[in-house]
């Protein structure tokens, strides 16, 4: 086991939703790792960028500070 502290994480309902979310923020190539088809790990700045892009696009992700 190991613990990763201070990373960004996006969990979507499915793979397609995750891909869409990353595409809206143009962050597809900034994913550090996919833990599952619907779960991506990113740097914190990238996660913030995705949250901002989704909000700007009229979507309402659950944002955990």
């Amino acid at each position, binding site marked *: 086991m190991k613990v990763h502290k201070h990373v960004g994480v996006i969990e979507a309902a499915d793979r397609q939703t995750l891909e869409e979310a990353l595409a809206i923020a143009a962050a597809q190539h900034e994913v550090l*790792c996919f833990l*599952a088809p619907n779960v991506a790990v990113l740097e914190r700045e990238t996660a913030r960028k995705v949250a901002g892009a989704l909000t700007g696009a009229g979507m309402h992700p659950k944002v955990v500070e």
Partner: protein
Amino acid sequence: MTRASTTKRTRAPARILEGNALRLERDLILLFAAVRDHPAKLLKSGAPSKTFFTRLREMFKDVSADAEIDGYILFLLGISRAAGLLHERDEHLHPNTLAIDVFFAEAPSARLDKLRQAWLDAGEFNEFVLVPSLEFAAKRDSATLDICDVVPGAARMRDIRRSVLAHVEKLEAGRWMRSDDFSDEISRAQPGLLIPNTGAGRFAAQKFYTGVRVKGDKHELPREGNWPLVEGALIGMLLRSPLLLLGYVDIGVDDEGEGFAFRLRGADTALADDTESKQPFALQANFEVLAFVPEMTPATLWAITRYCSVVSFADVATLKIEERHIAHAINEGGSFTGIVAFLESRSKTGLPQNVRYSIENWAQKAERVAIYLDACLFEAEGNEDLSKLVREPYRKRAALAPLAERHLVGSSNATPDPREGIAPRYPVLDYSRALAPVLRASDDGLLSCQSEQANFRIVQVLARIAKQESLERWRITRETFGEAVRKGLPPERAIELLRSIVAHELPAALLLKLQGWAGRLEPVILRRTALLEFQQAEAVELLRASAASRNLPMRVLNATTVEVEADELDKVRAVLADLAIPVVEDSHS
């Protein structure tokens, strides 16, 4: 209640202004909605931006009739921040929704106590700079609070509030007193209220209110004889604004408009009334909510405002249910059934079907993406079971949620130190700083590191340029490198990335390979040549000395070996024959 010996009494004034905690709380709700819909950018001074302030001024122009709007807004912002109902994030002010929920769930007396304490503690609000009859010389352009020595800082302002409040609370409840007389009393009892009298200190020797002028006057005020204009005005501001709004005093104004009087209120007369009608709003099919504000408790008004934007805010407020607010409520732990149950039970007109369907749709959409901006992620490896490795009390305390089968996730901000929940042998990788490069590389392109040291940044690079062979081994080959380049990774960047995750310098042989794959090595010229192996060095000298050999493309490698172009062998044979040097053909060539 004891009465101060010097207290003067005055007759009852013609017009009385009473503090109204219920109205104060409604205005706070309007403020929370405004901050939620337009998060306020905070300047370096901690004050909200001018744009935000202008917007608030517009929203409050109808609400704040008997208080200066700017001062009233600053007061609301100040006590909200001090009470933790608004908080700062990313240099913006946001409503602390959960804290507001808890606040409105409390009894009216507890809420009023909390607001009063917040005012006493407020550091972002300074009544002195709001005194309308005074103006201040700024030390720097656009400075607001840091303007002159006399203006009290946050700590001094807290002391002044407590002092004035202590003097007010010594008065007999219900007895009117002129504010000028009250100011005189304090000037005698506490002359250092604004400028502390500390004996030989700098302030004691100060002859002027440095940087303070009466509005429209060009000269600084001397301290002598001007207490009523400065300290008196500040005391008047405290009485007319926070002490009135928080229900400590009532204010009385004479018809002449000269000065004013006040009286201390009884302890239980300032509380908000927490009774309401069962169905205090009407919900329409166009998503508009007509809220009958006087029939609502602040808790209900806040609950409906959480789901709505504010269209207008008066005794009958017009609100509008919007997707973003429903989504926000869902994301903060609300549920579709909870929202619907609240609306159905409290709306006079029930819940229109189209509104219900929309809310259901919005709630489903809101649950489709969750983003942890600053996560703490526990990752199991091999056959490990996180439910056993992460201690249960810690899991509950940190509110860790399962993620992708083999992980637990929580917010780094809310998660206690992970070391408290796991055995010391497990690594904690902190991505807020540069992580140690731990990868080992060999000449043949094998890349390896212990799995517990492999952080996501290493894994990301390896996934782009190498192929995984086992849990702890990857290999970079010409094919994997070429594939990365084909996908848009510049070769130089690929080498740079690999260097950044390798513990030591890249092995020279691997680096040469990478440079070759990157197209950095100069091309090799492949030539067909023949070697002449002489038995005697003298024969070589004879060949070099001959005139015929000067036009031959040949190179002497050592005393007995000469290299010539393969295409020129016939000419070489002829020259050697001319020099009588016998030639034996190598049967293998």
